[in-house]
């Protein structure tokens, strides 16, 4: 059996990658993917804790997170398309005005 510790390390690495990408990437889609990465990093730790403590609530939470992530992806992608249509760029540094 793989110890809990390994899962948490992996989860932390995934989350850190997400944060890093979130902070340094300029492309909105990449930033969006980084957010998904963070969510999944957290999901992994939820599942790991659930297996370790034999508690179902962690697994249930994961489903919640996945639902929210799906909804977020739908809304987020729609926004990204809208942004691209108006500004013809996906560089966040150029998206610094609330209206044109």
């Amino acid at each position, binding site marked *: 059996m793989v110890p809990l510790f390994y899962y948490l390390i992996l989860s932390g690495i995934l989350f850190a990658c997400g944060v890093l990408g979130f*902070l340094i990437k300029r492309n909105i889609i990449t930033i969006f993917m980084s957010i998904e990465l963070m969510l999944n990093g957290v999901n992994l730790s939820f599942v790991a804790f659930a297996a370790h403590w034999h508690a179902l609530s962690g697994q249930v939470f994961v489903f919640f997170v996945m639902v929210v992530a799906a909804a977020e992806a739908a809304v987020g992608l729609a926004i990204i398309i809208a942004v691209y249509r108006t500004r013809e760029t996906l560089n966040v540094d150029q998206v610094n005005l609330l209206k044109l």
Partner: protein
Amino acid sequence: MTPNPYLWMVPLLPLAGAAINGFFGRRSSKRAITTVALVFCGAAFAMALFLAANFSAASAPYYYDLAHWIRSGNFQVDFSFYLDQLSLVMLLVVTGVGFLIHIYSVGYMWDDDGYYRFMCYLNLFMFFMLTLVLAKNYLVMFIGWEGVGLASYLLIGFWFIKDSAAAAGKKAFIVNRIGDFGFLIALFLMIQHFGSLDFTRVFSAVQPLPVETAGAGLLTAIGLLLMVGAAGKSAQIPLYIWLPDAMEGPTPVSALIHAATMVTAGVYMVARSHVIFMHAPTALMVVAIIGTLTALFAATIGIAQTDIKKVLAYSTVSQLGYMFMACGVGAFSAGVFHLMTHAFFKGLLFLAAGSVIHGVAGEQDMRKMGGLRYYMPWTFLTMTIATFAIAGFPPLAGFFSKDEILWQAYSSPYGSWVYWAIGVTTAFITSFYMFRLWFLTFFGDYRGGAATHDVTHQSADAHAMHDKHGHEGHEHDSPHESPWVMLGPLVVLALLSFVGGWIGIGGRFEHFLAPVFQSGTAAELAHETAGEAAGAGRETLLMMISVGAAVLGLLLAWLLYFRRPQLPARIADGLGGIYRAVSNKYYVDEIYAALFVKPLLDGSTTILWHGVDQGVIDAAVNDSADAARHISDTARHMQSGNLRSYAGWVAAGGALVIAYMVWMGVTQ
């Protein structure tokens, strides 16, 4: 006491008139405004006559409780009205003279743009004055007291576009505040010590108290504070300064408020509180001294004034001094008697002066009048009666009342020959300056404008009811008589000034008021009986002297202003500094300005305005705003609009929260 449900209607009728004219007057015709104002004021007068018809010296006072007002524990004040012999005299004077002056105002103010406003204010004044007179307790009286002050302010500043009129209104109001302050403190003392403000209750509480002959006690304090209030309202030293300035108002206002009625409120109040004053001889003496000094002081100022209304204003102050002198020697009924006759002849003097001013195109300087007896015979005739009345010539009204005061000042147990001597001197001066006014205005040649002797044309013009150019500020070719709507009240008042004093013959007036003032001390009652018998011969002698003083004044005025008109200027030059001091009203206004107004103004400017307001209050507000701006100035850099910097802040915030939780977890 008998309840009488008509009492409350007397003051409320003029209020209704004021309300109707105030709300709808702007859009009504002048005829409608006139009707409303006169009908409601006349109705009050009719009601007063109706009440008087059933009222005699033997009648028990009427009262009426209209509504509850303040009820707090044992202390209660109601909207209640009260009518006894004293308030009846006041009621008749106020409504009667008030009604005549309303009629006069129709002619005098007809062409003024603010006609409806004027009529509304006049009715409002009547309401407050009647409330004052008919009050059953000091607090309702105080409503009227403040209300007439308000009406006075509104009417003095009636032509508020003129700076001087606006300033005079403010001066009257502010000086009256000082007096009202004293009045209020007196009321507080009464509440504290007698638990009531009701006249009958307070007086019955005072009655058994010992007379404060040695030293000053509570009653002396109350009396003096009431006198402060009376000095403010009735223009006595040291608060008389507002009354001469109040002449900025239209002349009917000067006649109604600043001669006949409002300014006598102080005398009425002192007479009403006679029980308190009789128990406080010190306060009584102060009243007498203030009255006597004011009478003399104001009369001397009157000599050197050139504005016809200013002369009358100082004369009013002086005559009010007589009334206080009478009250101060315990002769309240003599004071009220003079109050009544004074209302007749001084109201008449002002109205006649208004007629003169009206006739000579708004000119008020007597040096530019003269010879007007040819142009305005009716004004001349009525003014003559009033002048002889105020000077104290028998058998006119002023003679009886003034003589009664002088006799009481001499013979009363509180009196002294000093009061009498100053009183007679004042009578002489009064006679002199009044005849000076009379000669300057009506005799000699007309000294103003381009005079033509086209009297026939003028009299035809005068009969036109609504004189087209009868308005202050217009230029006329020559003086002309006023319309009959103005002369009518003059004639009625002239009759009253002639016969008004006769009701005092044989002590009938005093007898009428006796039920009110009988509650004085036993000393007074003893004096009544003893004095009448013993002093008859001496009274005649003193009477001769005071009439002699009046005749002397007439002769001197005749010599100086009719026979040798160039003489006064020479005398004035000869007197130099004294004359200048008198003609500048002894520089009292300047002294007050230096002593009180300037320190107050400077203190307010440097300490309150620049120090407290700008230094503390404004500074606190401004500095906190500045601080907020500086902090925001720094903080706003966080809101750069750059999405990735926001992301950075979110990450940093998240890291901070995690670090905090980790650290907390560790320390636990």
